[in-house]
């Protein structure tokens, strides 16, 4: 079977058998998205983003046995690791500022060579998520951006915005709930993660 036909779940199964070729294929599939997420969260610090992506892929390799395909996809699992690691790093360094990349509209630049199939699917998904976030009231959207992309805790966000902590908790929860409804209606429900 050629590598294009190998499903992510099959590749992770091969990771459990310590197959480095499977690891390389997964890296080729998801390193760009992982690096893009880390780069954005870490405010364009390429070296820090590289560290985070390296840690995330090593976690993928070392914790492959804990992956549960019934609970998430490989992509969401990996990106969750990237996000957790980036948040850890931001909090460790204590030097967070709001990520400045615009969320609305189209990305300014998309000039990398792509696989047509993947890029179409990814861009459509991204556009729906962007719409879902953009449809939120500004206060809720801002709170989610500060939490997800800048790695701030709810108490930090409350302090930054000068509002009670309870207000921020509510904005985050209600904002995500609304996004979920929006994405459901757009047919982008995705895998509901097992929270346990």
């Amino acid at each position, binding site marked *: 079977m050629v590598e294009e036909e190998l499903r992510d779940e099959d590749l992770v199964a091969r990771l459990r058998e310590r197959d*480095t*070729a499977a*690891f*390389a*294929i997964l*890296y*080729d*599939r998801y*390193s*760009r*998205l992982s*690096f893009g*997420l880390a*780069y*954005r969260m870490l405010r364009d610090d390429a070296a820090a983003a*590289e560290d985070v992506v*390296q840690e995330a892929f090593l976690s993928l*390799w*070392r914790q492959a046995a804990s992956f549960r395909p019934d609970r*998430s996809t490989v992509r969401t699992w990996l*990106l*969750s690791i990237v996000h957790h690691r980036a948040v850890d790093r931001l909090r460790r360094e204590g030097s967070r500022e709001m990520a400045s990349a615009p969320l609305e509209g189209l*990305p300014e*630049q998309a*000039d*990398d*060579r*792509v*696989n*047509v*199939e993947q890029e*179409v*699917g*990814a*861009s*459509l*998904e*991204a*556009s*729906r*998520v962007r719409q*879902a*976030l953009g449809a939120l009231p500004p206060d809720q959207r801002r709170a989610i951006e500060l*939490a997800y*992309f800048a790695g701030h805790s*709810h108490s930090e966000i409350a302090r930054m915005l000068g509002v009670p902590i309870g207000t921020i908790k*509510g904005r985050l*929860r209600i904002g*995500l*709930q609304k*996004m*979920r409804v929006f*994405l459901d209606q*757009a*047919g*982008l429900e*995705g895998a*509901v993660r097992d*929270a*346990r």
Partner: protein
Amino acid sequence: MTHDEVADLLGAYALDAVSRDEGEAVEAHLETCRECSEELGQLLSVHDHLAMLAVEREPPPELRGRLLALVEEDLAREAGIRAPIRPVAVADPTGTAGSRPLGRRSRRVPPMLYGVGGALAVAAVILIVVLVGRKGLTTNTYTGGPVAHVVHGIDLRGATAQVGVRSDQTTEVRFTGLPVLPPSLAYELWFIPAAGKPIPVDGFVVRSRQVWDRPYPRDASGIQTVALTIERAPGRWPTPGKYLAVAVSLKG
């Protein structure tokens, strides 16, 4: 922490925006509360989608080789032996070098995207109309647009796309405002089915920001997306770079 207190924290918890103590309290509560577990599962799925807002970016090329070396070291350690002193076989991401077939770029649509793709719509899809012609011919019309302001250095602002799926099993494709490409590049039109390989339909260039309007004798049923890429012009091979420029979802 009470049920209500945990419930209030679920959004922050889903976004990694709680303290360690709060996180542990939430996790303890989840062990026994089905209601909170279900809600958190829903919120976490949104968290997962948020990652798609990041723009893909090429990591430093040396990272791939370093990671492969590290996993090789892991393997040696697990086997209880010292890692052999030998160069790690790292394939060249460009596919032009390398001693083992690991490095060929091979990204693909994640399986879940096939599953949900039928219901996705491109950002700019705002209009679906059914036109009834004089001879009873019906046309479902879908609109789309560029996936970014600039693709491969080409400014696509102002470009629009429209696809008409006609009941006589022909498909009309209309682009306006497409920029003129340098001689080394050309546009390539693709029909992308919900499952299976993209189908190349046409290649063309434009000589001014004119309207490109063509009927194609192809049935678009089963086609999920019509896409336009910027590619190397014919005769400029063998560097088949593809840059997605414009997309129109037919499932809006």
